[in-house]
């Protein structure tokens, strides 16, 4: 299929109203949602076998009780995004109201909760589930609203199968990226994973990474949810970016973009400085890398601003100036979670117009090939 650029049809090139939300979690209502899309060869595992996580909308074990702000929901959702009779994120009409009306988002990129690459075993079945999820996502979400963009979910342990799935799902024009969870038991820069990035690149897709149940810290799961949530996402992002840069992923695919979600922002200056410092004296370790790591970060990486936490706008702008990272940050709500950011609160008009535009939409539109049509 020829790639249809649907982006211009959705959002005008109005620089004052474009707002791309890079981190939106749609949710299945139940495993039943997947069944119509599950290939028959997987029914034996799904229905005839005992399968402890049957029915789960996550597919790996997560040990922590975690904060919720509404006693009527088991989701860590913002309380005013919880409505009766549904779980936050599983209702398209509610999502439309919350994001497109109230938050004035113009385009939302879905990445779900279904972390197929987080499994540790039965990889072929997991790939079948991921494929079913992709078809479900296209039919139940993307096809119903042209302001939504989607992700291809794959099982990274089987890179060739993952690449075929990317080729299959990428035919849908609203698919803009491949999703990989921020796992900490493997490094995506290693060569066996290269077919995934090759498939992303040949289909003009970015790669998106977000933490989940398979994201851990150096000694595994720490004692408490707070320790885990504070440390694991940025550490995993640093692990994967370092692996991809040092193993030459961006030298091989100079136009590939990796987007990192929900790791905060303030680690970036430290990371850029430390990476460049190491490269200057240990370049011979990775001689196939031809540029300073910070140059790859500026050209090939997006980092979502959420959670901007309690940084003031002035502090955030100083941080950007310190690290020359104007082209790296992009906006995300993390809908429907309670620690969501609101654009009006984190990106006020006090910010210089160019930077305000860059974070709201321009950096994403420049770096995610299928969203280039959004550039004014």
């Amino acid at each position, binding site marked *: 299929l020829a790639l249809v650029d649907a982006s211009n049809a959705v959002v005008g090139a109005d620089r004052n109203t474009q707002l791309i939300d890079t981190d939106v979690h749609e949710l299945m209502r139940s495993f039943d949602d997947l069944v119509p899309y599950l290939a028959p060869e997987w029914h034996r595992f799904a229905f005839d076998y005992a399968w402890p996580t049957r029915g789960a909308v996550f597919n790996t074990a997560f040990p922590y009780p975690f904060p919720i702000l509404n006693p009527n929901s088991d989701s860590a959702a913002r309380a005013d995004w919880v409505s009766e009779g549904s779980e936050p994120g599983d209702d398209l009409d509610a999502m439309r109201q919350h994001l497109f009306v109230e938050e004035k988002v113009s385009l939302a990129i879905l990445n779900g909760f279904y972390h197929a690459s987080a499994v540790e075993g039965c990889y072929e079945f997991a790939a079948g589930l991921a494929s079913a999820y992709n078809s479900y996502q296209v039919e139940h979400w993307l096809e119903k609203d042209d302001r939504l963009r989607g992700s291809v979910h794959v099982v990274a342990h089987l890179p060739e199968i993952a690449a075929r799935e990317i080729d299959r799902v990428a035919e849908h024009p609203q698919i803009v990226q491949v999703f990989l969870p921020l796992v900490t038991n493997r490094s995506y820069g290693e*060569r066996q994973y290269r077919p995934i990035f090759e498939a992303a690149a040949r289909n003009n897709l970015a790669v998106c990474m977000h933490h989940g149940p398979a994201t851990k810290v150096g000694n595994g799961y720490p004692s408490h949810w707070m320790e885990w949530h504070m440390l694991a996402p940025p550490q995993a992002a640093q692990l994967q970016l370092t692996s991809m840069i040092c*193993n*030459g992923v961006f*030298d*091989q695919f100079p136009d590939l973009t990796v987007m990192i979600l929900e790791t905060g922002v303030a680690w970036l200056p430290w990371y850029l400085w430390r990476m*460049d410092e190491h*490269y*200057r*004296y*240990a*370049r*011979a370790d990775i*001689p*196939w890398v031809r540029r*300073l790591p910070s140059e790859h970060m500026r050209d090939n990486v997006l980092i979502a601003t959420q959670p901007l936490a309690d940084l003031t706008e002035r502090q955030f702008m100083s941080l950007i100036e310190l690290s020359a990272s104007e082209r790296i940050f992009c906006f995300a709500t993390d809908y429907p979670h309670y620690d969501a950011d609101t654009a009006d609160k984190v990106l006020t008009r006090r910010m210089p117009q160019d930077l305000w535009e860059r974070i709201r939409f321009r950096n994403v539109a420049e770096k995610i090939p299928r969203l280039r049509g959004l550039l004014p």
Partner: protein
Amino acid sequence: VRHKLIRADELQPGSLQSVAVGGQQIVVIRTDDGELFALRDLCPHRGARLSHGYVGSMMGAATIGEYKLESTLVLRCPWHGYEFDLASGRCPADPRRRVRSYKVEVEEGFLTIDD
């Protein structure tokens, strides 16, 4: 200004020597193949004497994941291992960082540089 460094026969192939020239130190190098190079003997990173480092082939790559030694020679700083191309004085990892390099001539049995 032309500066006389040392007698040409004082510098054996595969060796280097630091020479004081008008208040500055210059490291003069004769490679195993007899080629002559000179650099300012001061690392632009933290000020180490580069003459305490060593000369070697620059590590390159045939392709991603495959190491291949290149013919380019680099002087490695003794403190942090920054490399400097003997000919250009540039650090291959970050070419904006460079140490001043000089062309070495042999004149009447002496190594000379122009500054």
